[in-house]
Structures are given as structure tokens and as C-alpha cells.
């Protein structure tokens, strides 16, 4: 937006807090160096000024629902040039309610950037690497439930997006990824920066398009957004040739999309829903496994109603975390390879397993023949292909989990909590046992070294369990999911299916932009942060107040854990150096804080929270701490490895 305002310099909205902290805060020692630095690099046109505020207000105004269909024409914008494909792209984005997208320019998309300034309602965030753009779109989508959008140029710009597209595919996240391509006449000629990107994204998107005609743009974008968000969500990739972007476009935007081959089933079959209710009535030890689909369907209220009405304990998949408030007496944490032991025991002893919007990933089931050995299974999923794919089930129900639960609830009898008292008491006992660790709460792992679970726990508490917490991948991800404590739907964001290191920081950026009303924390490892650390600069340039909790064990911790437990301590290539993180953060203009002991944790978190802008806290955690329990590969949910406790030394 507004390249025309390029020279507007602003005062950094800084505010290094002077909050007293015992944590080391190197650059806050009186010098204004960092502030000056931030001021200098703060070249977002007009940001922080009244002018920018007015534009922002106008932008939001323009995006209210009733105005969405009245997007100004070029003439209304006072422009006399012809409408080209690139204009149609901008109009389409606006019609779809896109208010922000994440992109990176290059040769073939320059026609698009040439007109983008004429659409100040569209906020463009210039990322530092296209992978970051795709993850940001993903984080934005998960935090808001809307479609995230990212854009890259042809060739390397497009291939850089692929990891993020694959991530969205495996986790069913609605994004539209836009790429440019060489002019149509050069396609297939190995032209400069030409790559068969639709060939590359074909197996890792829900659908993709190659558009060679400006007049196809309105239809393709209407379809792309519809496909991305409808039914089981997923990424859609639109590749536009340069001449499609530059060509005159006379086509109107369609009001409805016509896709005869895309008709998801939303309503569950009434007969199956009746059977579902009968199963609940018969069951003595029922358990609900709430997956990502519950969050996608916005069915968290219905989930809670069902749990309460029939007194059924709820466990989650990793991506289902935050579907039910963890302080609710019937909510019992997540299951699977690194899930809670009591939650896994619940599954292994259940007589009825109610799987809602989850896909029986192998990290959830372990060795399938020993999974839930006593349970009949009801599986509700919107994607028929998920039913019976990994686990044979007794009662399959294809449909949107919200609508299925709404239809089911009246058929479920109110269960007296007394009648489940023994069952619930048993689970409570398991829970008390599995949540007990000698250091959890004390803050110190062995020999006073900082314990990662303690750090995560404190972040959850400090943010009142209301922040959006975005994990990276590895041990940090498991600690985040286990110990932060999630109460609000979609407050937990994690790369589950692809397990993409480097996801955390850019996804948190997208989440923070999508939910500016919520505090956003990225919980990342030292390995993962080094994969996408350049997005720190985007946080600064675009004023995105993400707080980064770096759990630094100087290790590819999850790899080290496997090497310790499975490869007899052969620690090849799992030790890695990192930069001086505080200096690095400062170099980017991000406030940096450090905590190396349990005592420093609280003040460092407080200091980071007090910064009006992005901040990084470098937590120097124990190097050899592992995530337990752990289900070894090829084993089942009853074969968990557990931590061997030692008396904490003080």
C-alpha cells in the first residue's frame, strides 16, 4: 500500500518498557541506540502517523460486509487506465473479504504490484522469504477462520511457497497462494524463472489453476476461495501468467460458483446419527476425541454441550487442542505420541470412542491393532476419504461436525454425573498421577537448569491463557501444547501434519495480524528459529507485536531425544550453534531479553509483554531435557516411555 508515501518517516511506536526486571536486557541500558535503529528502519510508509491511522480506519470501513460488494471501479478511483487482469485480482481479493496478504515481488508479478497501490484497502505485508508468506497466511487463517492469502513471483518465488502450501494441505488450512508465471507464449520454453509450478503444487493442494487469460481471473478467484474454505478446507494455488495479469479484463466477477465436481456433504445421515445416539446410550466408558475439525467447524459449543449432557470426558488431538477449555472438568488434554498418559489410558480403556473431526494420524493411534482395543468407534468427518482410511470404524458419519452434533444433541439423554462417578474418579486419579513431576512448577529441571515446561507454563499464566500461542516444531511444540494451558478456541496453532520447522515465527506474525485484539506468542526452538528468523524484520517494519519465546537448548532437541532413546546416544548432528540472540534481535530492532534461571522467567516475560511491539525472550533451558511420555515408533498407546524422576537437587 502506498508506495507513494515512501518518504514519510515516523517516530517508532517503541516503548521499551522500563519495567523493572532482573532479566538481562542488554540494549536497554540507557542508550537509545535500538530506538534510533528502529526509527531508521521503520520505513513502512506513513505508519504510526495520523495519516496512516486514517488510511487504516478507512480500510476497515471499506471492508465491512455491506460495502464488500460495492468495490470501487477504476473510474470511481479517479483512474482512466483500462482495467487489466491485475485489477481483477485486487477486486477479487476485496470481494472475498481479504484485508491483508503476504507477498514478495518479482519480474512477472510486477504488473500486479504496479496497480496494487490503487487499492489502499488491501494491506500488503512484505515478508522476507516466500515460505514466511505462506506460513503467515496459514497462521492468519487458523487464528481468524478466514482464508489466508500469499503471493510470490515465478520460479524461485513460487518454489519457496511450496513448503507453506504443503503445510496448509496436511493441516486442512484454507489459503490461496498466488504466483506469477512467464508470459503464456514462453510457457514450456524453459524461460527465465520458469518452473512448472502447477505441476509441483498439484499433489500438495486441494486444487490448483494455471490462468493464461485475464478474463478467466474473476471466475478462477471466485472458485479458488470457495474451494479453499468450503467442506474440508485446504490450500488452493493460482498461477497467473504475466500476460494474464497485464491483459485487459472485461469479465465480471461471478456471484455464484458452479463446480459440479465439488459438493461436500454437510448433513450427517439421520440413520447414522440415530445409531450414534444409541451408542452413547449403551456406553459405560465413552470418550470423545476432539480433532482440528471441531475448531474448523466452529463446533466447540456443541462439543461442550455433548460432553456435559452425556457426561463424556474429552481428549484432543494435537490440532484439536483448545477445542475445549482445559479448565473444564471434562477436558483432559491431548493424546498420542507425546500426549498425556491419562488421556491415552482413557482411549485404551474406553468402550466407545467418539472421533470428531480428526483423522487418526499415526501419531495418535500408534500401532493400530492395539489402538483402543475395547472400543467401538463413531467417526464424524466431512471428508469421506478419511473414514476407514487408517482405522476401521463401526459407525461412520460423513458430515460437518457442527451440524451432526446439532442433530444429535436432542437425541442424547441427559446423564446423571453420579452414574459416571466411578469412571470420572478413576480418570481424575490417572490425571493426578500423570501430571505429577518433581520439577513441574519448581522451574528447575536437573541441577537448577531451567525447565522448558515451567517457561511455557508461565507464559500461559502471564497471558491469562488468552493469548494465541503458536508453536514451532520439535520439543518446544510438545511443551507448548502440554503446558501452556488453553482456554480459548483457536488459541493454539501448531504445524501438525507436515511438522515444518520454521513455521512458528511467520505463522505467529499472520495470527497476530489476524487477531490484533489478542496477545500473540511464538514458542520456538533454536533450530526452527534459525530457519525463518529473517521475518523478525517484517515484524518490525509492519509493527506486528509478536512475542517470541525462544526455548534454546543449543540442540535439535527432538532429534537429540530420539538419538538418546532410540539410537543409543549417538548424537550425530544434533548439536548446533546459534547466534547471540539478544544482539541479533537488537540488530533487527526487536527488543531482546534473557532468562537462564527459574527466577528470571517471570520478569523476562513481563518485560517482553510490556514492549509495544515485537520482543524476543531468550530462555536458556536445560540442554538434555526430553519430552515425556513418548510412544516409541511402532508401539501403541499403552507402551509409553516415561521420565525417570530424580529428586530435584537444589
Amino acid at each position, binding site marked *: 500500500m502506498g508506495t507513494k508515501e515512501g518518504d514519510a518517516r515516523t517516530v517508532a511506536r517503541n516503548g521499551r518498557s522500563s519495567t523493572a526486571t532482573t532479566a538481562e536486557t542488554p540494549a536497554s541500558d540507557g542508550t537509545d541506540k535500538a530506538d534510533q535503529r528502529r526509527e531508521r528502519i521503520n520505513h513502512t510508509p506513513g505508519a504510526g502517523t495520523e495519516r496512516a491511522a486514517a488510511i487504516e480506519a478507512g480500510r476497515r470501513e471499506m471492508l465491512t460486509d455491506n460495502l464488500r460488494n460495492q468495490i470501487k471501479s477504476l473510474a470511481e478511483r479517479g483512474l482512466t487506465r483500462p482495467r487489466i487482469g491485475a485489477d481483477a485480482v485486487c477486486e477479487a481479493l476485496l470481494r472475498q473479504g481479504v484485508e491483508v496478504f503476504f507477498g514478495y515481488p518479482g519480474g512477472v508479478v510486477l504488473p500486479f504490484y504496479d496497480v496494487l497501490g490503487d487499492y489502499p484497502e488491501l494491506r500488503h505485508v512484505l515478508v522476507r522469504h516466500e515460505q514466511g508468506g505462506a506460513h503467515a497466511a496459514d497462521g492468519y487463517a487458523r487464528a481468524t477462520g478466514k482464508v489466508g492469502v500469499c503471493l510470490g513471483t515465478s520460479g524461485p518465488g513460487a518454489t519457496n511457497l511450496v513448503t507453506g502450501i504443503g503445510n496448509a494441505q496436511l493441516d486442512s488450512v484454507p489459503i490461496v497462494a498466488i504466483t506469477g508465471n512467464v508470459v503464456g507464449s514462453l510457457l514450456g520454453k524453459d524461460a527465465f524463472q520458469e518452473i512448472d509450478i*502447477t*505441476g509441483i503444487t*498439484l*499433489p500438495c493442494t*486441494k*486444487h490448483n489453476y*494455471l490462468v493464461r487469460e485475464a478474463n478467466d481471473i474473476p471466475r478462477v478467484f471466485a472458485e479458488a476461495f470457495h*474451494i479453499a474454505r468450503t467442506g474440508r478446507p485446504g490450500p488452493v494455488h493460482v498461477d497467473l501468467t504475466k500476460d494474464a495479469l497485464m491483459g485487459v479484463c472485461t469479465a465480471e466477477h461471478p456471484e455464484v460458483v458452479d*463446480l*459440479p*465436481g*465439488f459438493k461436500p456433504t454437510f448433513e450427517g445421515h439421520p440413520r447414522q446419527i440415530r445409531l450414534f445416539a444409541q451408542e452413547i446410550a*449403551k*456406553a*459405560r*466408558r465413552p470418550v470423545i476425541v476432539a480433532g482440528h475439525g471441531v475448531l474448523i467447524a466452529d463446533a466447540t459449543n456443541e462439543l461442550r454441550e455433548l460432553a456435559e449432557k452425556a457426561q463424556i470426558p474429552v481428549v484432543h488431538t494435537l490440532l484439536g487442542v483448545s477445542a475445549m477449555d482445559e479448565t473444564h472438568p471434562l477436558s483432559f488434554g491431548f493424546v498420542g505420541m507425546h500426549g498425556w*498418559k491419562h488421556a*491415552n*489410558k482413557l482411549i*485404551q*480403556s*474406553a*468402550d466407545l470412542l467418539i472421533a470428531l473431526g480428526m483423522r487418526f494420524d499415526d501419531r495418535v493411534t500408534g500401532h*493400530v*491393532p*492395539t*489402538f*483402543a*482395543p*475395547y*472400543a*467401538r468407534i463413531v467417526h464424524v468427518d466431512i*471428508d*469421506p*476419504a478419511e473414514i*476407514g*482410511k*487408517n*482405522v*476401521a470404524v*463401526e459407525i461412520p458419519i460423513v458430515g460437518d461436525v457442527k451440524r451432526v452434533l446439532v442433530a444429535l444433541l436432542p437425541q442424547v439423554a441427559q446423564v446423571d454425573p453420579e452414574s459416571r462417578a466411578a469412571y470420572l474418579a478413576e480418570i481424575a486419579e490417572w490425571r493426578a498421577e500423570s501430571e505429577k513431576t518433581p520439577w513441574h512448577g519448581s522451574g528447575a529441571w*536437573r541441577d537448577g537448569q531451567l525447565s522448558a515446561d515451567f517457561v511455557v507454563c508461565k507464559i500461559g499464566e502471564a497471558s491469562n491463557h488468552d493469548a494465541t500461542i503458536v508453536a514451532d516444531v520439535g520439543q518446544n511444540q510438545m511443551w507448548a501444547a502440554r503446558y501452556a494451558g488453553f482456554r480459548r478456541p483457536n488459541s493454539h496453532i501448531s504445524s501438525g501434519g507436515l511438522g515444518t520447522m520454521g513455521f512458528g515465527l511467520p505463522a505467529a506474525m499472520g495470527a497476530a495480524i489476524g487477531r490484533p485484539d489478542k496477545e500473540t506468542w511464538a514458542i520456538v526452538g533454536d533450530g526452527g528459529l534459525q530457519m525463518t528468523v529473517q521475518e523478525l524484520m517484517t515484524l518490525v517494519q509492519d509493527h506486528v507485536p509478536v512475542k517470541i519465546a525462544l526455548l534454546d537448548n543449543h540442540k535439535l532437541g527432538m532429534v537429540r531425544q530420539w538419538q*538418546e*532413546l532410540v539410537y543409543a*546416544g549417538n548424537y550425530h548432528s544434533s548439536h548446533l550453534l546459534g547466534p547471540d540472540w539478544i544482539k541479533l534481535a537488537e540488530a533487527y530492532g526487536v527488543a531482546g531479553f534473557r532468562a537462564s534461571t527459574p527466577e528470571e522467567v517471570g520478569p523476562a516475560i513481563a518485560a517482553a509483554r510490556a514492549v509495544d511491539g515485537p520482543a524476543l525472550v531468550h530462555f536458556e533451558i536445560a540442554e*538434555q531435557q*526430553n519430552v*515425556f511420555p513418548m510412544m*516409541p515408533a511402532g*508401539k501403541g*498407546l*499403552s*507402551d*509409553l*516411555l*516415561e*521420565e*525417570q524422576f*530424580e529428586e530435584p537437587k537444589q
Partner: protein
Amino acid sequence: MSPNGQMPADQAANSAAPQAPAHTAPPARTMPGHGEVHRHVLVAIVLNKPGVLNRVASLMRARSFNIETLAVSHTDLPEVSRMTLTLRGDDVAVEQAAKQLYRLIDVLKVQDVTSDPTVEHEIALIKVRADDRNRGEVLTLAEMYKAKVVDLAAESLIVEATGTEAEVDALIGLLRGFGIKELVRSGTVVMSRGAGSIEEAVKR
């Protein structure tokens, strides 16, 4: 024992020790896709657009479904094409293949016609070594299989055979004795018997 004394592997066992619940438990949970393997015939009606064949082939490869034959053609509706796939797998695996095909936006309908009454045919062109001495024998065989000779040269001839995969297999087996110089098969196409039409089901 691990370096930091955390976890001996023999400590691994740690059972959830559930009591068997009151109602009848299902037998050990089965993993889908490990049943008896059969040949299946699927018919897919797909949009007649560039790239659709690629999408189908890519999906089958990515999900390790074993396609044996694939025949693609126009239909009477200009906007749709028809694919006939034969593949091997157990019932659940093939059902999974069909469901995965449905996920493709350009696929309109998929039907497993393996156990339906159908007319099933493929065509084969077989160039066989044959000269004055044994041409007669080849011709007799071809006739027995209702195949036609469509090209004749001094030292070879081309037999055009149609029939089910098994019938064509049988004829090829017999002709092999003479020496097959070249062989091409179209892959199976099928159509359900009776008045029902998969194409009509697609028309809206």
C-alpha cells in the same frame, strides 16, 4: 542407561491396565487395506479439461494404488470424459482409491463396477511372425477367438482381438508360440448392462 540417567528402555512397558468393559468388545482392530487382493474395475466421469488425466495419475501414484490399465475417452457429453481404471487391491483399499478420486474437484462420479453386470472389452493389435508355412494355423487361432486379421505381409500379420482382458490374454498366450513382433492393448473399457447410465447420472 542414557547419559543423563533418564530412561532405561526396559522401563518402557507401562500398561494402561484397563478392565474389560461390560459390553462385547470388537475383535482386534483391523488395519484397513490388508484383505484379499482382487482385480477391480472403476469408472470415473471427469470434466473434460486439460490436466485432469495428470491429476488422476498423480493421485494414484502418490497414494500407491496400483493401476493396471487406464483408458480415457470422450463421451457423448462434450464437457465430460470417461476413464476406466483397472487396479488390484482389497475392497477397502479400492474403496479408498475411489474416495480419494472424489476429492479431485474435476472428478464428477466414480463407480466400482467390478461386481456389476457389465460388458467389458479391450482391443489388442498383435503383430505375429507368420509365413506361408504357418499362416494357416495363426488364422485358425484368430478365428477361434473371433479376432480379425487386419494386415498381411510376407512374414507377418496383424491380429486385431477384442474381448475381456482374460480372453485377450488367452489369445496372446497362444500366439506367443509363433513369435510376437509387436503388441499394443487399449486397456479395458466397460459399460453396465441394462438401461442405467452413469453419464445420465452426471447430467444435471
